[in-house]
């Protein structure tokens, strides 16, 4: 590293400073001051990140890994230390840039979106807390640091979803999000404990350099069974992945993400689409060489990702709440990224197409999805509802937004030359190269579905006649502070794929792999055509259904007179209800009730019995004290006889 790392401190310090200053001092006094300060600091952080990135990629050092700075946090034993540091490699640099950039944009956007809110200062403080935590997460040099910031992003997500804490729906959504991710994190923590115990290290370098052979002949007691340490590592890998499973909201732990849309829209855009939810993908990418040695972990990851991808896309086709549609779309895209990582293994060998594709998709997805959310926020801010029922005909009122939305929608649909095309194409290619044809099929299908539901959203929102009075009456306009970041984000949404593709192909490799690497991969030049073809066909279907002159909008938005399959999908396969049922009946009504029963009746019962027992004995003593002198005199005699026989006197 020739670059001066001192500037990299700024990346972390700036958001932290914003949090402290806004949270403690500025937030309550002046909302405007807080906003300005936040934008300023985040801008500096972005500039620093950009500077670091440029320095790194131009230094000729890339794509090697380095630790920019590191300090010990907790020492567990000699050489077994949890550090806090900054890992520098293409992946983390890319994430740093993305996070700071999106944070910068969202902060600007929030000036417009949160204007007039009671607790604007608090909002900016929490937003910066999130940026700080997310930056710490992506910069992690080891599992322990990652877990620390993993939890911190979780809590900032909780605080921001529940930002409007007087809204019961927001409160319960925030709780659900936190608890569900916390549930996954408990497995993550267990995984960390297990893996670090076996490997005697938290460090990514060390973990990624492990080979199972060294552990095959030692055993470890896992309580229920005695397994070899190699198996224990595999179990640990799955447990660690579980953390990512929950954080990236993979099926079946996906339900919190759509519900999290109760939070303010800037929050949804930064946390629940662009950055935090990809932490799971980032985790798997970061530990890819480790996962690669651990049996079939990658296959599990692939199937989890692939299923979520299709599942979410199907639900997205029927939703009417624009933020929820985008949330399901996020789920689906996360599925893409996840399964791309999972496809990289054929037998015992691995290849890296999927890894590159996945990280590339993180990059492009961040821009267009963030943009889409900001647009959705803009619409909601103007129309005062999330519901597609009340939109339509916004094209004329919000022209810039309309254009940007079109760019982003095309990008997510994978239409060339928009950014999404490049990354998604690679992902599909990776599935093909890995001989996972079923997944390949699903991916292509989902690509069609994605185009369909995105254009459904697009057409229903912007095209047609206005369906609400406020839109028709022309109260709708574009807010500058909100439109500016949308416009800025449209640029990378359009161009990032085209421009950065080379960068990714050149630099983005998962690091030194301890398993044989497959270099001869089959080429398939026809895949882009197929994918684009499917996308275009879906686009046309969407146009016919929702935007063509003959389209029956009422029918499209009807959710009552529908087939049972449609209703099932519309109700998200009743997953919310199932969760509710499990938690209510099984956890609160079952385990907790039993625990309380044990406490209230068994433990307290024994206590009460002991008290009763001594009181009963006391009653006995007092009954003897009857006042009869004759009886008292009798006790003298009884006493003599008693101690004669049990007094242990030796005669």
């Amino acid at each position, binding site marked *: 590293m020739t670059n001066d790392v001192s500037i990299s401190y700024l990346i972390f310090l700036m958001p932290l400073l914003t949090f402290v200053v806004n949270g403690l001092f500025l937030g309550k006094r002046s909302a405007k001051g807080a906003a300005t300060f936040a934008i300023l600091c985040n801008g500096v952080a972005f500039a620093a990140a950009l500077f670091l990135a440029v320095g790194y990629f131009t230094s000729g050092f890339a794509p090697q890994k380095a630790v920019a700075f590191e300090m010990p946090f907790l020492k567990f034993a000699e050489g077994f230390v949890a550090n806090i540091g900054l890992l520098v490699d293409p992946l983390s640099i890319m994430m740093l840039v993305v996070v700071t950039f999106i944070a910068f944009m969202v902060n600007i956007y929030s000036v417009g979106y949160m204007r007039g809110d009671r607790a604007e200062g608090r909002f900016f403080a929490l937003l910066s807390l999130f940026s700080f935590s997310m930056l710490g997460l992506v910069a992690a040099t080891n599992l322990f640091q990652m877990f620390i910031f993993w939890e911190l992003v979780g809590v900032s997500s909780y605080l921001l979803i529940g930002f409007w804490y*007087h809204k019961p729906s927001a*409160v319960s959504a925030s709780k659900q999000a936190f608890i569900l991710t916390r549930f996954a994190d408990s*497995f993550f*923590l267990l995984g960390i404990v297990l893996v670090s115990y076996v490997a005697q290290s938290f460090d990514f370098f060390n973990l990624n350099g492990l080979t199972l052979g060294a552990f095959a002949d030692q055993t470890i007691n896992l309580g229920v069974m005695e397994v070899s340490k190699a198996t224990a590592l595999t179990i640990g890998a799955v447990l660690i992945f579980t953390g990512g499973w929950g954080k990236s909201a993979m099926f079946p732990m996906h339900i919190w993400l759509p519900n999290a849309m109760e939070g303010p829209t800037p929050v949804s855009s930064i946390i629940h689409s662009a950055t935090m939810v990809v932490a799971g993908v980032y985790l798997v990418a970061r530990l890819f060489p480790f996962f690669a040695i651990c049996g079939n972990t990658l296959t599990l990851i692939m199937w989890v990702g692939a299923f979520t991808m299709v599942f979410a896309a199907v639900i997205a086709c029927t939703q009417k709440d624009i933020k929820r549609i985008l949330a399901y779309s996020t789920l689906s895209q996360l599925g893409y990224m996840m399964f791309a990582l999972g496809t990289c293994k054929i037998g015992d060998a691995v290849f890296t197409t999927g890894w590159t594709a996945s990280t590339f998709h993180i990059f492009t997805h961040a821009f267009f999805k963030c943009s889409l959310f900001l647009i959705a926020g803009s619409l909601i801010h103007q129309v005062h509802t999330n519901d597609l029922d009340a939109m339509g005909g916004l094209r004329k009122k919000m022209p810039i937004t309309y254009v940007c939305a079109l760019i982003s929608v095309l990008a997510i649909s994978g239409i060339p030359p928009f950014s999404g095309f490049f990354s998604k194409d690679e992902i599909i290619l990776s599935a093909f190269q890995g001989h996972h044809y079923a997944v390949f099929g699903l991916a292509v299908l989902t690509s069609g579905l994605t185009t369909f539901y995105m254009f459904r959203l697009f057409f229903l929102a912007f095209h047609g006649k206005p369906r609400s009075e406020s839109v028709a009456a022309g109260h709708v306009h574009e807010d500058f502070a909100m439109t500016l970041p949308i416009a800025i984000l449209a640029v990378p949404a359009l161009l990032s794929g085209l421009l950065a593709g080379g960068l990714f192909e050149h630099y983005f490799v998962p690091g030194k792999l301890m398993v044989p690497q497959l270099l001869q991969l089959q080429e398939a030049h026809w895949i882009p055509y197929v994918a684009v073809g499917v996308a275009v066909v879906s686009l046309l279907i969407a146009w016919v259904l929702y935007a063509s002159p003959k389209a029956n909008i009422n029918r499209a938005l009807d959710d009552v007179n529908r087939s049972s399959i449609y209703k099932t999908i519309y109700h998200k396969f009743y997953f919310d209800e199932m969760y509710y049922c499990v938690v209510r009946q099984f*956890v609160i009504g079952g385990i*907790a009730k039993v*625990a309380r029963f044990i406490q209230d009746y068994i433990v307290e019962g*024994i206590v009460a019995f002991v008290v009763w027992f001594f009181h009963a004995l006391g009653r006995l003593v007092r009954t003897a004290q009857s006042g009869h002198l004759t009886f008292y005199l009798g006790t003298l005699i009884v006493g003599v006889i008693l101690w004669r026989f049990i007094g242990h006197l030796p005669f």
Partner: protein
Amino acid sequence: METLLFNLIWLIPLLTVIVCIPVPKTNTKLLKGIHTFSGSLVLALVGYLTYFVYAQGSAAVHESAAPLLLRFFTDIPWLQAFNVHYIVGADGLNMFLLLLTAVIVWAGILVSYNIKGNQKVFFALIQMLATSVYGVFMSMDLVLFFVFYEMEALCMYLMIAGYGSGNKDYGGKKLTLTLAFGSSMILATLFGIYFEGGVNSWSIMELSKVTLPMEFQMWAFPLMFMGFAVSSSLFPFHFWSPDGHASAPTAVSMLAAGVMMKMGAYGCLRVAMFLMPEAAKIWLPYVVLLLIFNVVLGPFIALRHKDLKYITAYSSISHLGLIFLGLAALTPVGLRGASLQMISHGFLTGLFFATIGMIYERTHTRDITQMGGIMRKIPFLGVGFVIAGFAGLGLPGFSGFVAESNIFIGAFQQGDTITRIVTILAILSITTTAVYILQTANRMLHGNMPAKYESLTDGCFREKLVIVVLVACLLLIGVFPGWISDLLDQSIAPIFAKISQAAAPVVGG
């Protein structure tokens, strides 16, 4: 000089009580002033001494206190009829526990400004309780230790019975008697230790140099360990704590959960495990079995409760269970985690009870279903409560996480089957903790607010100060655990050395 100051730690509270005797009880302003000053003075004193210990490092260690690394070592003959000495001293662990106590006592005095009843007696009792706790964490002579240890029962009952709320006699009695039960178990074994040790000394250091007979250890260790564990509410002796806390006034809850419950765990480590390591190796796995209730079921019970103090009490029960998990691990990391958890949980539960007390002063109810949305009216107290909650569920950045991660990693190093299973269960039950804490915070602070709370006012400066200081302590340990864990490592080393040297035990001795 520092040694003299160190001995003043427990004397100042007592002197305060004496100074206050001539003050008429109607002059509450003066009384509060004197007590606040005394609390702050001790806090400053302990703060300085902690810094002294940290800055001087091992230079200040007193050699005649070997094998322990004690600073400020003082040894004066006291009751010569049975070789009882006044032996005090502190290593890193003691020092931090003293600091914790000083902070909690100081906070306890501040939050009790509005206590109803005879304030003169109440503050005097707080100071006596403080004396007792300081004494426990300072004394290295078993009798002195026990005197201070048992003293707390007296103050505790009077404060609960005289100043508590609800079913105060029941709660107070349950608490006092259960604790007394524990201490009688300890007292019974103390005599055994003295006579079986055969060194004619009650000094922990002297006794640690001999190996007590195995037959004696086999029955004395469980008795003594459980005796101490009673006050740390280890299942099945935890039942006193929910009722006790619920009926106690705020300051007493803070002191009870914050410091007093640590005395038990500290005793387990410093006395039971240090003096009887052979039996500890045999018995501790079975102790771990009990933790299933504390750590795994405790949070579930909290989930079913609606009274804030009950919830916090069960939360304490589960957190204290983790201390025992760390102790039972018998690894340096586990022991360090346990010590960290003692300190961390002290601050955290102090914050919990302080905010609960303040909220209760305003809403006059502790039933969370009766509240809602009051965050809008009392943001400062609300944030304090939420921070306590987050620290409680082990959020990184707060001390709880540091302690818990140490305990988990340390406990996992113990290969024993029972310990493994319980460790895994304990790690997985961090979710349950999150559930009840969030549920409580949400019900109480968020959502719709009943109209009757429109007139609530946020904390005054005094209350804010308490919250800020406690949060600062939580953050300080959570963000910079390095320096505190170094000192703790140093203090634990002799204890661990004694444990690891203990001969491989033969069951049935």
